[in-house]
Every structure is written in structure tokens, then in C-alpha cells.
């Protein structure tokens, strides 16, 4: 049973390594980073307590928001999805990504206290 899981995972990783273009791999690395940061924040909150609750919330929401926006970017610049986003070029997706991030950071900074 575990064998098949391991074989599935290794095969997935192989295919991932070969088929995904470099750009997407860059974005995936960024996604991994965001994920880890968010998880660590949550761990801290569980262990130590929610003392400055607003700070915890703003940090966590920043991670979650960034993750979502990066996922959107990845979807939009993936060449395999070109049919779904005919009117949105990668540059446009990137610009949207930047704008949404500005708003997100404004809110996060307001809340971080």
C-alpha cells in the first residue's frame, strides 16, 4: 500500500520536473515558501498563545491572501490554460497580481497594529 503511494508520488514528481515550464516552477517555489510561512505562524500561535491576536490574524491572512493571489497568477500564465484566458496576457496577469498585492498589504499593515 505504501509502495503504491511512494511510486505515485515519485512518478508525479518526475512528471512535474519534466513537463512544467520554468516560469511555473518559479511560481511554485514561491507558493511553497508562502505555505511554509503560514504554517509556521499557525504553529507559533498554537504553541505560545494568541497574545497580540490582531498581529497573528494579519500575518496569517497575509499568507493566505498571497497564496491565493499567486495561485491565480499561476493559473493565468499557464500556457495550457490559454483557452480560458484569451483576453488576459501574462503581463496583464502579473499587473493584476501586483495591484491586488498592494491592496492586501495595505489592509495587513493597517491591522498589524
Amino acid at each position: 500500500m505504501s509502495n503504491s503511494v511512494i511510486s505515485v508520488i515519485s512518478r508525479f514528481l518526475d512528471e512535474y520536473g519534466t513537463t512544467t515550464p520554468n516560469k511555473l516552477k518559479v511560481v511554485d517555489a514561491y507558493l511553497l515558501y508562502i505555505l511554509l510561512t503560514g504554517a509556521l505562524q499557525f504553529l507559533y500561535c498554537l504553541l505560545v498563545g494568541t497574545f497580540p491576536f490582531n498581529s497573528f490574524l494579519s500575518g496569517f491572512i497575509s499568507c493566505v491572501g498571497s497564496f491565493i493571489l499567486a495561485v491565480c497568477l499561476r493559473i493565468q500564465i499557464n500556457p495550457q490554460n490559454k483557452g480560458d484566458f484569451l483576453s488576459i496576457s501574462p503581463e496583464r496577469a502579473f499587473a493584476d497580481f501586483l495591484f491586488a498585492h498592494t491592496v492586501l498589504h495595505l489592509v495587513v499593515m493597517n491591522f498589524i497594529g
Partner: protein
Amino acid sequence: MQNLLSQQFTDLESAYYSVVGLTKLGATVPDHEVRKTFVKSQLDSTSVDSLFFAAEISRAISGCEIPVSNETRDLLLAAVSEDSTMTQIHRAVSALSSLGLPLASQEVVGSLTARINKEDNVMAITMALQTASQLSQQAELGGILEEIEDLTARLDDLGGLYLQFEEGLEATAMFVTAAYSLSDHVDMEPPIKEDQVIQLVNSIFSKKSWDSLSEAFSVASAAAALSGNRFHVPVVVTAQVTSPSLSLSDSQLLVTDVISQPLDSANVVVESAYAVASKTAILNQAPFTINDGIFELNFMSSQPASGYYQFTIAVTGDSRLVANHVELKVKVSTEVAVTNMDLSVVDKDQSIGTKTTRVDYPSKAKSSFTADSHQNFAMSFQLVDVNTGVELTPHQTFVRLHNQKTGQEVVFVAEPDSKNLYKFELDTAERKSEFDSISGTYSLYLIVGDATLENPILWNVADVILKFVDEEAPATVQPKTLYVPKPEIQHLFREPEKKPPTVVSNTFTALILSPFLLLLILWFKLGANISSFSFSPSTILFHLGHAAMLGLMYVYWTHLNMFQTLKYLAIIGGVTFLAGNRMLAQKAVKRYAWCTSECMIHDLLVIRCSVRAQRGSHSFFHSFIHCHVCNN
């Protein structure tokens, strides 16, 4: 008021108020000669005001002649026109009539009506009324008469008791004077109702001291007007009930008009009098006899019981009298005596017979009484009216027990039974909490009081020795410490929440930053680079702008508030947006340009790459690689 009006004056205006005011009150003006020379020296023939004051004073005091010249007369006549203020017109007309000079009444009426339309305030219209009363009777004064009614409507009703103008006492008093003088002049009753007159009198004469000479003068004029006019004369009834105890047999009333002149021709009759408590009438239509200006009635001869009585009094005799039905409250008081005071100590189980001692007022019982927890102490007495012999039930009948040593006192109420016999019983065991169980000698006082009693009683009847079970050590009575500063309360501020130790925080901060390192490593491994970085101005601007925005975020966290941040963000963001737009467009064009070129020969678009290109509106699948004409 006479004192205020008799003061020394420094100018003609105050001289006018003082002299004329005193004359209206019917008092004599002191220092005639001084005043006359003063007036003559102060007279300024070129001023209408000065002429007015002097003329009025000369009318009041005899023998004070003012020299009148043609210029003076012309000056005064010229002042009577539509262009001068109402005050000017009034003073000019009064001066003319006091000096005996002729004036054209119709012209005056014309200018008065014109001024009334222009100056619509109370004082102006009052002065118009006053002026009109000086004119001849042939003139058409009807329009001005109507103003009285208008002004009456403007009076403010305060609580149903007072009626006055909101401009104050002086305006109200001058209005009354002017209205009555004009009504007398044209011989028509002023349209002021009786209860309005009563209310006006209340408000004008309610003040006992006046702020200024002109105010005092206005009140004096109003008083004179109200006593001397032909239509309404308010009556003032004051009771002079000096000592209504049964020893004096009369109750006296002073019936006067507003200037305290007694109305001799009036008849004063008591229409009815009844006791307030029982509503039984004791007098009906009893006349007062006049005795040297004071009206007296001997009603004690009908032997009324003590208490409060309501008298309704009517003053008749003159058809002008107003406010001639008055209600007075009279109190008849009496003296009380305590009779049949019996003191006894009764045993609770009634096994031992009672020992009754009679005590007479005002002496004290010879022996003291002892009562312990098995016995009751009892007291009974009667309260009797001295003159009539009727039993009384006054409001306050208290029994007070006073401990001489500790200063403690306890008060009880004695209640009457159905036969008006007062009884008081002290149950020693039951009441010991009120005495704090302190045994000892208590002096017993009887306190009797009432509003209708002339001799309240405080009588030390006897000494009582009370013995309580469970006696505690007699503690001195502490005065209640109510007003001593209380212990201070320390305010506890909200404790800040416990923070985790700095070590833990720092550790986790480092931990959080570690994925960033991971990111950089991964990117390096993937080969992400900035090799296609072109140094065009828009690119540089874009990156700078972006960095500035991130820096702004940090500054927002530390220093700014939302509004300032939004302001800066708008500026930087706008710049960044424009630069970024250009930069991204250039990037897109470059990518697109890499795929296409033109056939040199045929000027046709040749697309070289076979990879599907994505670029805005130009995204299409490149399917041909050569110029379709020449296959290049």
C-alpha cells in the same frame, strides 16, 4: 420708593423723574427753590429733550416758569413730523402742551400713525398713546385707541398670575399709564379685562426695589394711573390679623387702593366663612365696621373652634373697583392643657395590680418608676382645649425617653383611642433593641405641638428606671462618623496581558524567516535570473516605484495613518502603474517581435516560431513559418 425718588440729581432727566414721580405719588417735593434754580440753569433751549423735562417739571411744581421764545416754539413744532423718532414727537408734544403753546392735533396724529408703522416696538406705541392723550379731543384718535388692544394682546401671561411685556417692568408700567391716561382723555373704557388688570397689578407691584430712576418713575406713574382713572381701580386687601388668639376679639383688614390710600366709601362684607377641615360655615354676610381707616370684624364672639378658616370678602361701593372679591385664610389658634396624666407600671401577666400615679402639669412625679423585663410601663392622658373644654388631637404628641448618662434618647408616638384618650405603653422586653439594652435611669418627657397651638408643651413627667436582661457594658454613644474622610481606594489599572518571553518570540521570528532562504535557494536552482533586465527608464522607474510602495508600507506601519498612506500611495502607485504598463508592454512586444519579421521582398508578415504565442489581442496559433508567396 419715595427715598429713591428724593435723591439728589445731577441732570435734567433725573430731575424730571424725581420731581414728577414724587408728584404722582402724592408726596411733597423737598427743596423747591433748589430744584427751580437747578432747572433754570440746566435748561438748554435748543434741545427738545431738555425742553420737555423742564416743561414737565414746571407743570408739576408751581412757580417754576420757563421762558418761551419764538425759536423754542418753532423748534418744538418742527420736531413734530414723520421724520423724528417717536420719543422726539412725544417729548415735543408734551412740552408744547405743558408750556401752553398751540399745536396742530391732526398733524400730530398723522405723524404718530406714520411712526407707528415704522417703529413697531412696545415702547414706541406706548409713547404714541401717551402723546395722543395730550391732544385735543376733536382729533381722530380712534386709530391710536386700537393700539391699546393690540398691545394688550402682546402681553405675556406668566403662570396665570402675572401679565407683563417681555421687555420688562418699565415697559409694562408705562403702557398701563399711557393706556389709562388716553382712555380718560377720550372717555372710553380701555379694552382690558378685569382679570388682566389684576395680573398687571401683580406684576408691576411685585418688585420691592428698583434698579434705576426711570424704572421707579414708571412704577409711580402706573400707580397713579391705576388709582386715579375713571374706569378701573384695583383694590388691595391686606389682613392685619395681629393676634388672633381668643384673647383679642377682632380681625382687622386694611382695604386700600394701589397707592395705599384707604377707600373710605367702600363697604366690606364677609360673604362666607367656613372651616377648612369640616367645611361647615360659621359666618354669612357679616359686615365689617370701619374704624379709623381699618375695617374690623368681631368674629371671635361666635366662638369658633381652633383651626384654619377660609374667608371670602367682597368690597363694594364704587363701580370702578376691580379685584374686589378676595379670599383670605385665617388661623384660629388656642391653648392646650394636659389633664388626667396617669402613669403606672403593669405586670405582664397581670398578676400584680397596677399602681397608678397621677401627675399634674407642670410638676414632676415624686418617685421614679421601675420596670424590668417582666413589666410594662403605661401612661395615659388627655389633651383639652383650655377655652372650650373640647378634647384636641394635635399633630405631634411624642414621648421621649432620655438616658442621662449616655445621652441616648428614644422617641415614641402616643396614639389616641376612640374617646380621644391618649395612651402610651412601653414593653420593656420588646423594645430593648431600641434602647441598645442599656439599663439605667431615663427621664420621660411629653412633647405636644401643633400649628394651631399657642403653647406647645415640653414636660418632664417622671424618671423611669429600666432594667434589661443581657445588659452589655454601657458603650458611649458614638456620634455617627458620616463625614470623616473614607479610606482611599487605589485604582487598579488593567493589567497588560502576559507576553511570552522574548527568547521564544525571537526564535520564532527566525524560524519564520527561514522559508525565505529556502525560496532563494530554490529559485537559484531553477535558474531564475534577471538576465533579460533592460535598463529602459520605464523599467527602472517601475522597480523604484514598486520598492517605494513597499517602503511606504513599512512607514505606514510605524508612523502614518491610513489617510496619509492613501495619499502617498496614490502618488507613487500612479507613477508605478504608468511605468509598469509601459515596461510590460515593451516586454510583450519583444516577445512577440521575436516571433515575427517581414519578408523583405513581399512586405508580408512572416511568423517564424511554431510555439503558440500569447500576446494580448495578437494571440493566435502560428501555423506558417514561411512567406506564403516566396517560401522564404
